[in-house]
């Protein structure tokens, strides 16, 4: 269980992180979201002990973790990443395994497992500089995760990956999740996070803006969009009568209307049915992307 409590970090006169708190259950997958410069990377570096927070605490299973334990227990794929270009793929993964405390023959077994998992078998004896960007990124993931960390932090793990490689990485992360690894992900590809994560925290300007599971974030969302077919004048009149309703873009076949989240949906449906034929009635939940954009625009 990772607990980040009111952490703050200043660099001279620049306050990179003002006040960020969140709590991640062991074995869950957590999405840390925010625009560029929001303080996500600094927060991740504080979790990893690369930076010491100026205020607040970071605990793992209730206790502060020593740097050495962090390196053995945590894994990190930074957004700014590279490889030793002349080092061969297997050597590179094994080197990082050793840095994380693995010894022979464990390091060889774990490296082989990651090589197989990420489909790097054809490249093990090739210098990393000769690989495509996507394959280099897979090697970087293997380097970050070769020691099977309890907590794996991945900053923009999908950037630069083609759909096939993104699929391979998603499958690997799902495998880690099933094995009980706690994952922290930061990405601008919301649909991937929505698919993977159990809970989220949105930060801007170094502060928490929203956090919780997708259901909790949706519950706090102030409106819902009603999708009604067919788009008849009677249906439009019923929806116009709902307090706080706003019509969105017009479609010939359907009506889209934003209503307050607490609007009485069964009554609205009953009124629509009474007014004429209704072939489709749906209250659309906001997507993670909607919530994210709304949250950062409000901040």
């Amino acid at each position, binding site marked *: 269980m990772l607990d980040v409590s009111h952490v703050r970090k200043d660099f001279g006169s620049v306050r990179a992180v003002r006040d960020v708190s969140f709590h991640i259950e062991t074995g869950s997958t957590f999405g840390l979201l925010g625009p560029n410069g929001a303080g996500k990377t600094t927060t991740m570096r504080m979790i990893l002990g690369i930076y010491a927070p100026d205020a607040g605490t970071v605990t793992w299973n209730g206790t502060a973790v020593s740097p050495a334990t962090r390196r053995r227990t*945590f894994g990190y794929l930074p957004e700014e*990443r590279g490889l030793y270009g002349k080092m061969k793929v297997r050597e590179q993964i094994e080197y990082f395994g050793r840095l994380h405390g693995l010894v022979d023959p464990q390091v060889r077994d774990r490296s082989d497992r990651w090589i197989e998992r990420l489909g790097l078998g054809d490249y093990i004896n090739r210098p990393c500089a000769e690989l495509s960007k996507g394959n280099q990124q897979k090697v970087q993931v293997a380097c970050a995760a070769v020691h099977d960390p309890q907590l794996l932090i991945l900053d923009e793990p999908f950037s630069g990956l083609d759909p096939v490689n993104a699929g391979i990485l998603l499958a690997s992360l799902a495998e880690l999740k099933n094995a009980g690894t706690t994952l922290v992900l930061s990405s601008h590809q919301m649909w991937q996070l929505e698919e993977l994560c159990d809970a989220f925290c949105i930060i801007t300007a170094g502060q928490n803006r929203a956090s919780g599971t997708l259901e909790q974030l949706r519950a706090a969302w102030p409106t819902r969009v009603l999708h009604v077919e067919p788009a008849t004048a009677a249906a439009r009149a019923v929806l116009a009568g709902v307090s706080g309703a706003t019509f969105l873009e017009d479609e010939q076949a359907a009506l889209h209307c934003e209503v307050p989240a607490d609007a009485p949906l069964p009554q609205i449906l009953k009124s629509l049915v009474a007014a004429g034929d209704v072939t489709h009635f749906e209250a659309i939940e906001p997507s993670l992307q909607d919530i994210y954009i709304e949250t950062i625009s409000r901040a």
Partner: protein
Amino acid sequence: MPEFITVFSAEIVRRIKSRSFMIGLIVGAVGIIVMLRLPTYMDSFANQSYRVVLGGDASLIAQARPLLAKDYNISGSEPGLQHPTGADIDAHGRAAAVIVFSRAPRGLGVTVYARDPGSVNETKMRRDLLPLHLALATNLTQSQVRTLVRMPISVSPLESKFGSAEQADAARGIAYVLLFLLYLLIVLNSQLIMTSVAEEKTSRIAELLVASVSPSALLAGKIAASAVLAIVQMALWVAVGFAVGAQSMSGASGGSTQSIAGAGSVPVSDVVGFAVFFLIGYLQMAVLFAAIGSLINRTEDIGSIGGPFFIPVIAALLIATTALAVPDAPLVIVTSFIPLIAPFVMFSRIVVSSVPLWQIALSLAINLAAIYAFAVLGGKIYRIGMLLYGRPPKISQLIRALRA
């Protein structure tokens, strides 16, 4: 500790496999051979290239020829020639001068007709011809004159480290070579550290590394690996030096070569001093250069940013070579305590003079403290610099970041 060993062994393997290490090793060895051979070669070349024609009195030519033979390449003689022309100077191949001998009222008369009058070394010529001149002036035989001019001069050491002038000369020759070796090893290896750190920064592997290993273990592993390889380099170069020196000693009698070849008699204290001051100088420079390397964002900036930091080392080398001649000069004594400079200057002083023990101890204490200070400061800069991208930080920004 395991982290340190992992970084250390990976660095050793990576450096050994690198082309630059092998090229440096070979070029260094060739450089040593050239440096040891060059003085002898240049001496002989200079002697051989100064071709002269002897003219004038035939009997004087016959007596002067053996006296001049060791310093001049005598291409021929023209007995009876008094006023040579351009044709005479080239009569026996292209010569530099025609030396015309005559009897003077008080001994030997010598007139040199040279293409370049500035090239005539009158002192050397006078020394070579002195026995003949005195023999003519005094009516003694040349062998009697030689006996007379060999006035016995006895040199006894007083407050000196050396038992004889030959020993002192040999020590200076060895110290000169060792100083350059010290300079090469410190500069080359410190620069390699800087390049290696800058490459990790520019290849963006730095952040992946600092999350995997403590920055201090990473830095220590790099520096230690480089030190071990530097010692291997040094051992090879010294072995080459001994081999070439020994060969020169058996085959040549040139002064400078002989003094270098006398490296077999290097006192143990000098060897220990060399090792200690190498380690001190290397550690100071390596930590500083690692810190500088961590602030570099483009490999092409290595030269322009790192270059100015070599100035103290170049100054140190100049002062240290001066110290070989005047080890007790005030500037030499003062600089033998100053970090970055002391490793060269104090080593020089130790080799050629009897430095008071308290001065050695004080210099060591100051420089060891400096290593600690550099390690703390350099380690902090390294830790921050490795994660800083964009334009290199200003000094004020760096100070703020160090305080954070």
